């Protein structure tokens, strides 16, 4: 029976399975977005967006997610390099630590941030001595976003560094290039597509951050109320505004991810530069 099955494969069955699963899953993913888009006309969305609360939220979301992404890039790429190129005791623990925010419920993360950087928290007292207070401030929003976005930068960046051809790095070394030089002039340009994926993912994660923000930084229009928080609040009193905001967030996130994906991999400054370096 086994032989018969192998000899007369029925690809149509397998194909049916794949097709059925894909249709179900893709329909499941697309339907909520379609529902959202059908609920309001673009004109209505634009009309709602002119409100001061919405403009405040948009501005705040933009500033905080750009700042958070910048921090994640500057601090995340060296860590990704470290994880991709070095073995050291306790590396597993470091890896788990970096991934943890991805699996943690954001509310728990926000609560943990309060325990650490809140006024009565472990590091909060030291910050207070420096005159820095994070809860209820815009800076606190950035901290929450950074915390949640780290794995989305480190993951792709690390994979990108790890997949570099070691021969290129060795070649640089034989030419007596220091590691810093090799990192900036060989590794970084070559890994650029993966790094940009990390930038887009962590930027999108910062833009969508909700749970950690509302728990750690609170919710005040103009100060800590980012777009996702404004959506949540509007959902409770002004459904149409909530829909408009949701549509806008959806379009922004979609554009961010799509833009990155459709950019030709060789079009970045890094590529040509890298080839020149590695030659």
């Amino acid at each position, binding site marked *: 029976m086994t032989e018969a099955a192998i000899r007369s494969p029925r690809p149509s069955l397998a194909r049916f399975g794949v097709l059925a699963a894909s249709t179900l899953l893709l329909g499941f993913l697309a339907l909520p977005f379609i529902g959202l888009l059908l609920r309001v006309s673009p004109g209505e969305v634009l009309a709602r967006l002119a409100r001061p609360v919405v403009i405040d939220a948009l501005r705040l979301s933009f500033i905080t997610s750009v700042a958070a992404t910048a921090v994640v890039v500057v601090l995340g790429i060296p860590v990704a390099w470290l994880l991709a190129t070095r073995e050291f005791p306790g590396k597993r623990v470091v890896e788990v630590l970096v991934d943890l925010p991805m699996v943690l419920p954001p509310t728990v993360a926000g609560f943990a941030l309060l325990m650490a950087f809140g006024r009565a928290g472990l590091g909060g007292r030291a910050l207070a001595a420096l005159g820095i207070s994070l809860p209820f401030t815009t800076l606190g929003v950035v901290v929450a976003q950074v915390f949640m976005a780290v794995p989305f930068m480190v993951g792709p960046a690390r994979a990108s560094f790890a997949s570099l051809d070691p021969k290129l790095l060795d070649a640089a070394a034989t030419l007596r290039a220091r590691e810093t030089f090799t990192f900036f002039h060989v590794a970084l340009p070559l890994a650029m597509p993966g790094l940009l994926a990390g930038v887009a993912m962590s930027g999108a994660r910062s833009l969508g951050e909700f749970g950690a923000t509302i728990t750690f930084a609170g919710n*005040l229009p103009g100060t800590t109320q980012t777009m996702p928080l404004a959506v949540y609040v509007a959902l409770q009193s002004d459904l149409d505004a909530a829909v408009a905001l949701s549509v806008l967030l959806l379009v922004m996130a979609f554009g961010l991810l799509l833009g990155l994906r459709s950019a030709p991999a060789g079009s970045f400054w890094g590529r040509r530069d890298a080839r020149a370096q590695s030659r």
Partner: protein
Amino acid sequence: MNRVHRRTLVLVASLALLLGTVPAHGAADAAKPLEVYAAASLADAFNELGRLFEQRQPGIRVRFNFAGSQQLATQIEQGAAADVFASADERWMDYAKERGLVVGEPTLFVHNRLVVIVPKTNPARIGRLQDLAKGGIKLVLAADAVPVGRYSRTVIRNLSRIEGFPADYAPRTLKNVVSEEENVKSVVSKVQLGEADAGFVYRSDISPAIQRYVRLFEVPASANVVAAYPIARVKDARAPEAAKAFLDLVLSPEGQQVLERHGLMPLAANGP
């Protein structure tokens, strides 16, 4: 063998997904739990009432959904499987009534009042309600859409009109608001954790467990609000009989006693 297995698995999985969309019939109707959607401020009191109800009505389980009344009203409007709706103000009950989501006339079943809480450590050294208008105080309120948030703003305005409070008390106090929380329990926790200097909450939120962490300031009766809580059966209730029994329990002397034990004011105490 392996390949056959894999193909069978894919097929079974796909079928299971397809069949999963067909509702299962024949579930025993009697086992349907009673779904009570109640304002977050009722959580402690209603949990106890729920246990009492389950003792009285063996076989019926009570499930609670506690959240801001505005959220519950929206959820019921969107077709949530609620049997009973208990709101912290008449605004959201009216909202539900206007949309035909509840049956019959909603009944007021309990009253609540506001208090101000500060962390036990009192980092801002608040000694009286007037201090809430001092510069740099971190005051946390519920958002305006939440009943307690609206009540808080009314109380602050009322205070600026009574003796002993400056006339600009309201604008100065409202300027100190650092966060608008989505329900009253979040206000409590921000104060309890010592992150906020003060917050406006219901008296009923201050359970003995929370009292260990906070200090309480009463609001003078002349400036306080009396929050009236209406309760009603939801129109599409799946357990209408149980819903009625739950309402009866809430309004019974025994039910009212439970509510009073949790810092709420029973109807009789206020008179008509």
